């Protein structure tokens, strides 16, 4: 009888212990899961901060680029026009009213042209507004600037004007990508012709740039310091979950194909 009682007592004690230990294990599991959750949240915050820092950098670079364009335009274009106006006006001989009238007419035309150029430049000064009018317009403005240099034979097919969706952050990055690509072509490619295709399909934005320049060894350039521009392009594409395909053949040129989930 005594042994029966002891058995029951042992059984009860063990069962109660099990019922008390189970919540302990549960709490341990919750603690461990919670720690993982904390790490995940911190990682997400870190990525967000990185993204914001990259966005800020992109914004600064776009602004820098705009300022450079404005400076070049002021020096090479508006400055020249106004100098020519001054020269023309200086040469006006009021006693020869007929010639004077023609020269004044010419000067007025030059001033009007300068005003038009300045208006164009004012548009660029809006900076952030570049992408506010849509990525199609922003890219076109960049292409127009390239066209103005007259140094390249351009074949442009920009189908992003009627894009209904927008993504301001991505737009800024895409614009900066194109600027960086054009910059690389001007600086290093020695190209004479550039083909540019942009279009939107199945929630993906495609950007394709081809040129007939000197080409380069992509794998080798990636690891060197001169490949910083390329690395920055790859990093930014990766940041917005995009894909980059770059093919380059020495002396034959380079083609860059970019796919970006959009918006």
């Amino acid at each position: 009888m005594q042994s029966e009682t002891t058995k029951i007592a042992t059984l009860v004690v063990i069962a109660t212990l099990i019922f008390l230990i189970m919540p302990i294990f549960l709490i341990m599991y919750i603690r461990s899961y919670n720690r993982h959750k904390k790490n995940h949240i911190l990682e997400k915050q870190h990525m967000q901060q990185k993204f914001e820092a990259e966005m800020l950098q992109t914004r600064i670079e776009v602004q820098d680029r705009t300022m450079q364009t404005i400076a070049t335009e002021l020096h090479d274009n508006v400055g020249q026009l106004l100098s020519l106006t001054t020269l023309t006006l200086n040469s006006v001989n009021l006693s020869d009213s007929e010639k004077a009238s023609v020269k004044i007419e010419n000067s007025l035309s030059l001033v009007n042209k300068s005003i038009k150029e300045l208006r164009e430049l004012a548009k660029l000064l809006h900076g952030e507004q570049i992408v506010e009018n849509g990525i199609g317009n922003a890219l076109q403005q960049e292409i127009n600037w390239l066209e103005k240099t007259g140094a390249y034979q351009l074949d442009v097919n920009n189908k992003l004007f009627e894009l209904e969706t927008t993504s301001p952050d991505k737009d800024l990055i895409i614009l900066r990508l194109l600027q960086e690509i054009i910059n690389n072509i001007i600086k290093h490619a020695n190209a004479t012709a550039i083909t540019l295709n942009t279009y939107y399909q199945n929630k993906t934005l495609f950007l394709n740039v081809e040129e007939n320049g000197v080409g380069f060894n992509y794998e080798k350039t990636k690891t060197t310091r001169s490949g910083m521009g390329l690395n920055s392009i790859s990093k930014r594409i990766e940041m917005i979950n995009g894909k980059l395909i770059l093919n380059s053949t020495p002396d034959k040129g380079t083609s860059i194909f970019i796919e970006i989930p959009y918006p």
Partner: protein
Amino acid sequence: MIDLSPIVIAEILCLVAAFLFLKADKLTFWKLNIAYLFIALVTEAFGSYLSDQKVNNLWLYNIFIFFEITFIFIGLYHCLKDYINPKPAIFSGLGITYSLYFGLLIKDSIMAYNAITVTVMSVIFSFYCLYYYYLLLNDEKFVDIKFHPQFWWITGVLFYYFGGTVYNLLDDVFDIRLFTNFTLRYLIVIILNVILYSIWTYSYSCRAKQRKSQP
């Protein structure tokens, strides 16, 4: 002479802690803890006194069950509302428990211990505590559970009611005497109460810290 059993001592200590940590709290639920612990202490002390006098004290514990059901459901409501609208879950649980409590009270009289209600409510409380953990883990927000008062309050409830399941289920079987006037059942009740009140005391200190850190 009131018998100062380990349960009464644990309750006094927890009540003092609750008073110190929660007296300035603006939330009704936390203040309600002080009132509940006071009722629990009075019940336990008076129950012990009646037991010493060899008088049936089951009616007293039966009345206390009503306060226990109400208070624990209020606590569960308070903790669950951070994640969901707990009204449907709480009111259905409360409805089942109250129906059983009053039904059995009418059927068996107030002098017979309402053990079935206690068993059923223990299962319901344990289930709701696990549900709270589930919501806590699935929530996108991170909370430092080490200092989270609601988490520890729920943990206290889970330990007490889940741990007490064997005690509730085998209530009739294990009236085994370890010493004179000291049964195994009583030992388990003491352990469960000490665990509950210790965890709740910690939860109150966390709440005081939380309140101070909030603007």
